[in-house]
């Protein structure tokens, strides 16, 4: 159950970012922003030659006191960042992976929509929203 889910474009601007509304969303935005550096670091560490072999799931990017941030990058350098509650110890790596997989699939569906301009914010897809909602912590 994520606390915040973000989709970052190749140029490192957010295509979609959504947080659990209870908290100060700015904080999450900031965390996602800072995590981009870590993502870049991980990507570059692989080297050019390994681009194809690079695994999409980046794993834990960095932990903070309250949260843990996970990253996932696609082959087109679109990044998914997910912030989860650190106290949620039951959340296993596999589950995070599956959540990213779902994200990726939904993102692909959005891309397939001819009415969606790549580079636009993802605001039109109900399916995508629904999927993200299902992944977010049910706070209310």
């Amino acid at each position, binding site marked *: 159950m994520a606390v915040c889910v973000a989709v970052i474009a190749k140029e490192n601007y957010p295509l979609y970012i959504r947080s659990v509304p209870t908290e100060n969303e700015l904080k999450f935005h900031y965390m996602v922003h800072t995590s981009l550096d870590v993502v870049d670091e991980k990507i570059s560490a692989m080297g050019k030659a390994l681009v194809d072999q690079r695994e999409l799931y980046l794993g834990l990017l960095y932990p903070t006191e309250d949260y843990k941030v996970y990253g996932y990058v696609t082959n087109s350098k679109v990044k998914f960042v997910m912030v989860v509650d650190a106290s949620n110890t039951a959340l296993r790596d596999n589950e995070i992976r599956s959540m990213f997989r779902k994200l990726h699939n939904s993102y692909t*569906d959005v891309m*397939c*929509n001819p*009415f969606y301009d790549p580079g636009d914010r993802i605001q039109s897809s*109900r399916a995508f929203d629904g999927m993200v909602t299902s992944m977010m912590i049910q706070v209310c």
Partner: protein
Amino acid sequence: MEGLTLSDAEQKYYSDLFSYCDSESTKKVAAHGRVLELFRAAQLPSDVVHQIMELCGATRLGYFGRSQFYIALKLVAVAQSGFPLRVESINTVKDLPLPRFVASKNEQESRHAASYSSDSENQGSYSGVIPPPPGRGQVKKGSTSHDTVQPRTSADQQEPVSPVVSPQQSPPTSPHTWRKHSRHPSGGNSERPLAGPGPFWSPFGEAQSGSSAGDAVWSGHSPPPPQENWVSFADTPPTSTLLTMHPASVQDQTTVRTVASATTANEIRRQSSSYDDPWKITDEQRQYYVNQFKTIQPDLNGFIPGSAAKEFFTKSKLPILELSHIWELSDFDKDGALTLDEFCAAFHLVVARKNGYDLPEKLPESLMPKLIDLEDSADVGDQPGEVGYSGSPAEAPPSKSPSMPSLNQTWPELNQSSEQWETFSERSSSSQTLTQFDSNIAPADPDTAIVHPVPIRMTPSKIHMQEMELKRTGSDHTNPTSPLLVKTSDLSEENKINSSVKFASGNTVADGYSSSDSFTSDPEQIGNNVTRQRSHSGMSPDNTAPPPPPPRPQPSHSRSSSLDMNRTFSVTTGQQQAGVVAQPPAVPPRPQPSQAAGPVVHRPVDADGLITHTSTSPQQIPEQPNFADFSQFEVFAASNVNEEQDDEAEKHPEVLPVEKASDPASSLRVAKTDSKIEEKTAASAPANVSKGTTPLAPPPKPVRRRLKSEDELRPEVDEHTQKTGVLAAVLASQPSIPRSVGKDKKAIQASIRRNKETNTVLARLNSELQQQLKDVLEERISLEVQLEQLRPFSHL
């Protein structure tokens, strides 16, 4: 009646309503049916409705007389105006607007209401009516332009009662949601409700131009609209028609529809749609869509790429956001391209949207792309209430499922698929039923035909066995022999219990299996064990007595089978000594016994020797085409049968693939018998004629024993004969090798393979059986000791 005073408009209105409700013209209206629906359409809470009914006396009378009805209507108006319901209020409340009945007929109702009231009131009421978003009518007001239905509305005056609830429609909810966008300028907001009411009004004799279908439309409910304007893609949609007052709009029906469909066509469409859920695509619509599809993609089975679709739908002037939603809904397989079905669904949604209907959350069932192109006409009503949203139970996702009743064509698909599935499952199940036994054999055995029948065949028929024999003979004999050889050597090593060995050899088939059944249930053998079990079972019953301890050298086993074994062994040995004859039997028995053992082993329940025997026999027979010399076996079998009663033979028999060399069962048997047979085989070795070679002797013994036991178990001579035949075949396989040599090498090799497999299986089985045998023997010994201890006491 309590002095109800009605204004003229009210009077007229009420009388029309009453006429409407009073379908039977009996001057009284039943409480149910239309009246109820009418009241429901009034959008009052049910308790209020009940209260009204009570107040007007209908409950007392049980029906609505005219006066009651009028009172009720007045009360409805009172309630709708927010006044408390009181009997006196009917008269006290002045200037009560006409009761409004919302339902698909909303607009018309409102219009009617408006019409009844003064013009100003009319406007007022309209406005009053408009506000309630759910009210369809409101939406219509705005765009009425195209509604052909509108023509009806033009008839506002004509429709005195139109607002009466359309009985069928309860969909109201969905249309309401659609309504939200109705105001949208996107034009085409034809008034759906108009369509609805139209038909409704027809009963009132309104000459609505298009509303002939009225009734139909009504029932259909709501979204008839799509039909109306739908076409105007290329041109600016109905935007032109905006907000003309109803009457005007009614006239306006012009419907920008550029589409070929004439108003009549629209009406017809509307009508047809009325029966169905709002999202149903009528034939005309579909035809139109298909034509449009062709303009983009001539191949009806092809796809429209996303970009082309984007251009096309952009022409509809819907906002991109909405188009994106529509695409999301209609691109069923999420491939970025539209098939014909998807395209029609998308088009339909666009039309609906343009007409003011809200987009559903999920793709309605009727719009789901079908696997086969269908004509949607069919089934209507599958979602009477679903209009729009509900998203049809069928969820967008996957449903090409049978859940779409309306899709006639899907049914055949589904049926086909289900048939395919069924067949598949049948096949798979049948293959499963083959049980490892067969499966082992099958690959190797070119005569795969046997595989199937083998496991299934519970009682081998002589004929079959003979066939098997023939087949066996054709195959390679060497295989069976070799494993047997190996096994026998192993067996001979242990030599724990001669009798047991003999037992095994003789009875292993039966005993081993039977005991194995009881002790071990090798799952692998279950399937194939049919035959085996038969053989085993035959033996097992006889082997009730604990197998004579190996030390007890009874050449005659305690069990009859053992006795047989001895005899058999001796016979077999004699036969073996005979040479050729003996050898072949040795080898084949292994696979067979193993095979037989397998099934027996795995079938703990199978006490029926007959079954096992039969099962094994047939199995054995088919599997060992190599063993041609069943006749020889018969001889052995006869001798073996006697011995086969031993329990211990259970395992041995398995090991002794007498019947089938190639069967995996035989290998199992061999395996099983290994342990047990070791002892037994040693003893049986000599007696084991089946094995041509000495090492083979033991194995053959169990095999033979099994066979014998099987035979014994099988009272029927046939089986015995078969088994013996099989055994003979097995046994003879070796000696008969030279015979078989003449056969196809391929067959031989195949049989070799089979035999090997069988051998391995049997070997496994054998080892297990041996274990069991040992245990049993130990128990027996202990029991005997106890018995002896007790005996002296008994004398006391």
